[in-house]
């Protein structure tokens, strides 16, 4: 895992961005940036070279699933690791995310250990 990569954390709730950022910092990630919805995340992707996206599902303006679809529609981001961290854990949500090309899926509430394990699964 390259701890210098830029990680984009997308969530409409500052609380969850703060919690995810805190766990990433504890794991040694040095470059964590934030966006509060899918639309803002897409403009960050245009500006920065992002190595990992961690996104919520249910957000105003542009949801996490729409962000994932937009990301995968761009050849440049076909392989970009994309983890969905969401309270939306119903079967149809998970199936839709897998079909859209999600790399891994975390259902809220989650422990820091769960996030660490999923990151290891993505990068190792």
């Amino acid at each position, binding site marked *: 895992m390259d701890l210098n990569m830029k990680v984009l954390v997308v969530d409409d709730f500052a*609380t969850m961005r*703060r*919690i995810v950022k805190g766990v990433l910092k504890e794991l040694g990630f040095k470059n964590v940036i934030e966006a509060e919805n899918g639309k803002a995340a897409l403009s960050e992707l245009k500006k920065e070279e992002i190595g990992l996206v961690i996104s919520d599902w249910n957000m105003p303006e542009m949801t996490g699933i729409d962000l994932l679809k937009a990301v995968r529609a761009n050849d440049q981001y076909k392989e970009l690791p994309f983890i969905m961290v969401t309270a*939306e854990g*119903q*079967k149809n949500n998970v199936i839709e995310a897998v079909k859209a090309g999600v790399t891994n899926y975390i259902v809220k*509430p989650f422990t820091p250990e769960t996030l660490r394990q999923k990151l290891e699964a993505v990068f190792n």
Partner: protein
Amino acid sequence: MDVKLVNPFIEGAINVLRTMASVEASPGKPYLKRDQKATGDVSAVIGLTGEASGTISISFPEKSITAIVSRMFGEEITKLDGEVSDAVGEIANMISGQARRELEKMGKLIHGAIPSVIVGKNHEVRHISNHPIIAVPFETEDGGFTIEVCMEN
């Protein structure tokens, strides 16, 4: 309203606070709530639609929510500010998500809207439908909070 629909929200509240804040919450006896007065100083309300519809809310007094958010963030929070009200919305969102996963296992597919948060002494929580409101009080070592569930089958 089928009271079985309330249990997933009780379990959700216990699990979310345990996982995200290491807070043990004990549910008290549910009661029928007949007014719109919030039991706390900050509340989050979520609309539910699908195979059952209605609203759920969670309401915290300032003392208990500042203690809970302090544990979530790992630093002392003393005021009910924007950060705390944002956290209340996210707590409600996670409780709603967990409860809806359980309700799906009971055969009810339900969608949850983005939470609305209301802050202030003596504010009101308006549930959308005219169905009975079941309130469940909880206790934690830092004080109480209340969940309200108002759903039609």
